[in-house]
């Protein structure tokens, strides 16, 4: 905090202008703010984090549906800043909402679920990238394809690089399974969450087929 009261600065904790406030009080007030904001329809983006075997995931939804799944390596603060700039800055942390999403992801990682039927919001995608990203759910659980094959499936066999870009900018990884797309030479290819995450997702699905 910037010191704005140099003449009044006081070493005694009880007179500290930034004296700490009970976390329980702030948590209760935050919950009340969420409830009030929801009543007034003021939450454009609700988000929470979900623990998973590949690390914490940030999930963010609009009233339309799930708009973003992010890996910790992407830096959650940067992900939220991008959502604020691209969709709306009326963003609130809603730890007890988005339970359906959290449960679906839990089920997926436990091998109890092979696909997702969640409502999605494609606000972060457009054009050819959106076409590619929406097509990803056609790749069956436990199977893989290549960037080249995917380009051919979409009727644009020469757009291999564009398909690769679409996969690497997929705003809904895991849900739209870009981890099932490999390079034509058999190499793993890049992944937003890191190569080791891509490998674990492929291994998880292979083990549950």
């Amino acid at each position, binding site marked *: 905090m910037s010191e704005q*009261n140099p003449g009044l600065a006081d070493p005694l904790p*009880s007179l500290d202008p930034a004296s700490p406030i009970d976390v329980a009080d702030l948590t209760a*007030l935050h919950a009340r*703010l969420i409830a009030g904001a929801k009543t*007034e329809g003021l939450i454009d983006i609700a988000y929470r984090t979900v623990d998973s075997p590949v690390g914490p995931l940030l999930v963010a939804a609009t009233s339309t549906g799930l708009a973003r799944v992010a890996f910790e390596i992407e830096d959650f603060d940067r992900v939220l*800043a991008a959502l*604020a700039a691209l969709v709306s800055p009326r963003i609130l942390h809603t730890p007890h909402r988005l339970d359906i999403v959290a449960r679906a992801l839990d089920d997926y990682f436990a091998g109890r679920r092979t696909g997702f039927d969640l409502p999605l919001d494609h606000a972060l995608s457009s054009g050819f990238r959106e076409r590619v990203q929406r097509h990803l759910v056609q790749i069956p659980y436990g199977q893989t394809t290549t960037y080249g094959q995917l380009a051919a499936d979409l009727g644009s066999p020469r757009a291999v690089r564009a398909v690769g870009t679409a996969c690497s900018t997929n705003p809904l990884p895991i849900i739209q399974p870009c981890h099932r797309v490999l390079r034509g030479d058999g190499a793993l290819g890049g992944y937003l969450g890191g190569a080791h995450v891509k490998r674990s997702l492929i291994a998880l699905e292979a083990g549950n087929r």
Partner: protein
Amino acid sequence: MRLQGVEVRNGQPFEAAVQEHGPRVLRVCRAVLGPGHDADDAWSETFLAALRAWPTLDRGTNIEAWLVRVAQRECIDVIRAKSRRAIPSDVLPEPDSPPPPADKSIWYAVARLPEKQRLALAYHYYGGLPHTETAELIGSTPAAVRRAASDGIASLRRILAENGEIV
């Protein structure tokens, strides 16, 4: 940007502002209204009002100072609503009631200060607003705010010492 009918000028996630400035706004509300439901009401209304205005807030606005000014308006609303309902204050504990929890004792001490000192401390000392801006908010002069704030701190020290908070 999806919001329709408004020019979006501010692209910062609102949650970050709640996390960063929530405690300060609560200190301001508690200094003005005491550490009870009234302060909670004012805090909630402050952040709801801020959320409504958030997308159209001018880029470069000093968010912290803006929130303290919003809190001041909401505190006044709470006081007005209370005086209409004429419900007794929940600020001061009854003489035979148990001592306030340690983390809130400072706010009971602040509540015993004269209004001028209390408001000077609320908006300047806890809110971080400069003397001039505090003076405009509470209808005073910068010199009087400066005096009231330092008198308020001196009184607080005395009250806390009487209560055995400072050894």
